[in-house]
């Protein structure tokens, strides 16, 4: 029996059916599992850890932010479920909290900008040139990251009224009387936050990722060194620089130890305020609300960080 092509196409051959695999959801799940179970097992400790130490406490914090506190027996403040926005209203209307939020973000922004601007030339120099004393320079940028606590105490000695910075400024006749930079004034903290450490290393690796060819091309066509740097190198390393900015900014927003030790326990930084709400005042709901605000700021930063890192690039 002969069939025309059209008739043949209409017949439902078994082989034809198997071309379109009918796989149920359960089968697909099983297949995915058999491909991925070992990877999942390898990642399980990390994911579990992140969940218990980070995600769950954060959820609790968000829940607590909507609580109220209640005085029991005139001795104990106990959080009580309320589910209103009272704490957030308080955070944005009470001038004390409002100032603290503005102060934290403002100082973080100013110091981070200074930090990145100071870091750019050094990072470029370390990435491209033969440097005299490279080991010492690199080590000095690495030390404060891992030994921040030493540097903070050391800074407290270096910035006292009798210390070397004041001595130097007096000798140069820039000031008449020693400035008090630590203890109660925030100047020491601001100086320290503006100094580039981590940012130099991050930006350096961003600059290393920029191919020399582009710079050479710009220079052959007659651009000056400065112009090459600002119009070719910096735009090409933009993602790395933005990433460094966000990391340093989030570090400055979340700085706790530096203000505590250098500016005294009653400073205006939001992190310290949160801690004060917990420790002497037992106002857990308010502390949680302020914590949620700070977390929200960091979440915005993290979102931008994701954007700078996700879409590839050399960063």
């Amino acid at each position, binding site marked *: 029996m002969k069939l025309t092509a059209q008739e043949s196409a209409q017949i439902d051959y078994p082989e034809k059916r198997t071309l379109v695999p009918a796989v149920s959801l359960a089968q697909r799940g099983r297949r995915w599992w058999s491909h991925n179970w070992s990877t999942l097992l390898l990642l399980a400790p990390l994911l579990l*850890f992140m969940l218990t130490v980070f995600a769950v406490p954060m959820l609790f914090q968000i829940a607590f932010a909507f609580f109220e506190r209640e005085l029991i027996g005139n001795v104990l403040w106990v959080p009580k479920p309320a589910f209103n926005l009272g704490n957030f209203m308080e955070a944005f209307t009470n001038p004390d909290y409002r100032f603290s939020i503005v102060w934290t973000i403002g100082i973080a922004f100013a110091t981070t900008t200074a930090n990145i601007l100071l870091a750019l030339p050094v990072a470029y120099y370390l990435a491209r040139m033969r440097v005299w004393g490279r080991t*010492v*320079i690199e080590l000095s940028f690495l030390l404060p990251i*891992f030994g921040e606590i030493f540097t903070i*105490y050391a800074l407290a000695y270096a910035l006292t009224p009798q210390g070397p910075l004041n*001595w130097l400024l007096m000798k140069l006749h820039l000031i008449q009387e020693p400035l008090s930079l630590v203890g109660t004034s925030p100047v020491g903290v601001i100086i320290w936050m503006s100094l580039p450490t981590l940012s130099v290393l991050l930006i350096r690796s961003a600059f290393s990722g920029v191919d020399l060819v582009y710079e050479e091309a710009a220079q052959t066509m007659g651009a000056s060194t400065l112009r090459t740097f600002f119009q070719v190198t910096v735009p090409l390393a933009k993602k790395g620089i933005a990433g460094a900015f966000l990391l340093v900014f989030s570090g400055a927003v979340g700085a706790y130890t530096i203000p505590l030790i250098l500016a005294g326990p009653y400073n205006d930084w939001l992190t310290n305020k949160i801690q004060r709400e917990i420790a002497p005042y037992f106002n857990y709901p308010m502390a949680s609300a302020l914590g949620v605000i700070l977390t929200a700021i960091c979440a915005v930063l993290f979102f931008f960080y994701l954007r700078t890192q996700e879409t590839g690039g050399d960063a």
Partner: protein
Amino acid sequence: VKLSRPAAIILNLYALLLAAFLMWPLLQVVLTSFTSDIVFPPRYWSLNAFREVLWPGFMQSLYFSLKLALAVALILMVICLPAAYAMERRRFRGRALLSVLIFVPIIFPVVIYSSAIRVYVFMFYSEWRGAFWLVALVTAMWPIPLVIRSIQGSLANVDPVYEEAALIMGASPLRAFLKITIPLIAPGLITAAMIGFTAAATTFVVPYILGSNEPTVSLYIFRDVGRMGFPPWIAVEVLVMQIVVLGIVQILYFAFRKQFRGIFV
């Protein structure tokens, strides 16, 4: 890029100046310790400050810090080694996302999650407050990205063919990993462990907020500062802590400089 010679010299001087400014506080601690004087052009040399430290309590806290650091380094190895291996050698959906998600502990401030943990632990599980294992677990959070990145960096430098060869010759995946890959990445692993160790040995925020039962060395110094301000003998305490903790790291930095660079590249 061609820089004129004066420009290069100026840039180098700038780099050295910045380095000096970052190193100088550390030198200041040495100076204060050995002069027992907080005035800058030192008026005399004296070791009095060394005598004023309460050594037994201080050494106790130093010992506790090192114990905590060791525990944290172990926790970090358990968490980060398998994760770094999966992220470097396996292809799976969400890998790019995960490699950014591990930066969560650095982007979100330590104060935030540790005070969140404090609030809910103190309210519901008050018997856990200040427990050693709780402090160790929370301290292990911050260094995760650095440790994972450094292990990943050393894994990337090792050719997977050696492991595949072992697998083809009939070794089980676990055996191949333990006998082939681990020895190859050993220097990187040591560096990674040292990063976790240092971060934990110098940690202040987590034990302070969680109210650690025993003080770590940074907490001990902080309490002294709270009572006394900044007398010269606190510089001695900082110096001793620095020599003990950073000494290890500085030696390892020079020994394994190549792996250390890998973290940020």
